[in-house]
């Protein structure tokens, strides 16, 4: 086993479980502490990255959609790069939404359960049980909205996880034991193919980050160093856009071939 991706409907519980799983397994914990490094690598303000992880684009918050997507792409590229190393517990970086088809990454969702969740939040935040309940409900709605806007996936959809544990009656320590018990399962062992899938994802994320810095409406797929970029442009801009994409993507380390597919941008065409 090399990667555990842990998420929860209550941040406090998610942090607690991830920390304990990392301790029990002797794995490295990857959490929002890396945002400072990401910010330094891409010369972005750390607070802006933290903000992008919490909120959806909004003009009132001076966070336009293109910038927001670029920030997320930077985080995603860095997280995927770090996940290439073995034995990691990842939490709080939305990896459960973009690490797809990597068989050695086990995605676990821990549900706070009514009793346990409200109590933990009330204790950690020093608020009443009623306020904690309201806070949890609004937080869940916000996370659902965020995940759908950012990755078009609903993070409350249980089919996205390998294992979902409800803490209503299961003690957190028992949950940790159950999760760590899976480390020995053959299906979660690192295979050459699963490692290749992860490196393809990491390369696509790097190219995505490089392109989103200067343009929007980009989708990137990578396979063995070959990169396919899907975008939109008007007939007039098409050639120039292809050249720019090829130049930018070709400059990313590990890219050997770039193919660009352009769809007509009907709106710009009409203008």
């Amino acid at each position, binding site marked *: 086993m090399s990667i555990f991706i842990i998420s929860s409907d209550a941040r406090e519980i998610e942090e607690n479980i991830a920390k304990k799983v990392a301790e029990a397994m002797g794995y490295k914990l990857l959490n929002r502490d890396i945002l400072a490094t990401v910010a330094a690598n891409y010369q972005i303000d750390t607070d802006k990255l933290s903000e992008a992880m919490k909120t959806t684009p909004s003009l009132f918050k001076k966070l336009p959609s293109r910038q927001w997507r670029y920030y997320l792409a930077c985080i995603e590229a860095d997280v995927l790069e770090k996940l290439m190393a073995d034995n990691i517990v990842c939490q709080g970086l939305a990896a459960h939404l973009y690490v797809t088809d990597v*068989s050695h990454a*086990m995605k676990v*969702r821990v*549900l706070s*359960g*009514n009793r346990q969740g409200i109590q933990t939040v009330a204790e950690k935040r020093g608020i009443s049980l009623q306020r904690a309940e309201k806070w949890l409900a609004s937080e869940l709605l916000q996370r659902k909205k965020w995940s759908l806007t950012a990755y078009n996936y609903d993070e*409350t959809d*249980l*089919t996205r*996880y*390998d*294992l*979902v*544990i*409800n803490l*209503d*009656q*299961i*003690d957190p320590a*028992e949950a940790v*034991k*159950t999760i760590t*018990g*899976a480390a020995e*399962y*053959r*299906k*979660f062992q690192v295979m050459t193919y699963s490692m290749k899938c992860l490196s393809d994802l990491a390369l696509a994320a790097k190219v995505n980050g490089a392109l989103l810095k200067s343009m929007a409406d980009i989708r990137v797929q990578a396979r063995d160093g070959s990169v396919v970029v899907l975008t939109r442009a008007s007939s007039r801009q098409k050639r120039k856009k292809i050249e720019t994409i090829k130049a930018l993507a070709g400059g990313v380390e590990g890219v050997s071939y770039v193919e660009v597919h352009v769809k007509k941008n009907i709106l710009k065409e009409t203008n």
Partner: protein
Amino acid sequence: MGKIVAQKVAQKLNYDLISREVLLDASSRFNVPEMKLEKAIHDAPGILERYRHGKQSYVAYIRSALVERVIGGNVVYHGLAGHLLLKGIPHVLKVRINADLERRVAIVMERDKIPAPDARARIMEDDKQRRKWTQSLYDQDPWDTSLYDLTICIDKLSVENAVDFISQAAGTEGFKSSEKSIQKAKDMSVACRVKASLVEEFPNISVTCEYGNVLIYIKGKDQVTGKLSKKLDHIRESINDIHHLETHAGLEPPPDAV
């Protein structure tokens, strides 16, 4: 897929495995054809059925038979709606097994010897009925994760891995039966028996039971009529574990009422 996992868990823990037996119990005890019970637990009520309350009665019979079966503990139940019918008994571990649609299609194709489009359509229809059934009778979404203690996706994990997870969770402190949780199961069994005796004639009643003290909640405008009084006298005599029986008209039943 759930059936195989249930069989293996029962084997590993040396528990009894029950599924169709519940319907047979309910069928013989309440004198209803098994087919009708199976339809009641599988298909969502139609518009007319919602007024006739037939399905509600059948579900009450099934629930009573199921609670009776699990009261002794050490049981693995595999079947529809177990997580809803046994809700409220603390030492019941509620597990959901998920599989990718294509894998489910392959299983149905092999089991029912039908082509892929038919298998897919059958699965979609089943899921639609399940959702409608749960929403109409329990006002909940069957895909809501919070209804289960453990949800296991069988795509990446093997059946054996799922069995390990379940067996491990079953051994944890939260699911060990205690004097209190056994009492709760016994009380639920009494409440279910009372409800099953009344539901055909009085479909809108709700029942709770605590240490043998039964409270029957009657909807707003309904009154304790002579017919109900007679029925209650009969219930007092026929169900042994009732210490005291009381009716409450016009009061909102608590959420754990059956």
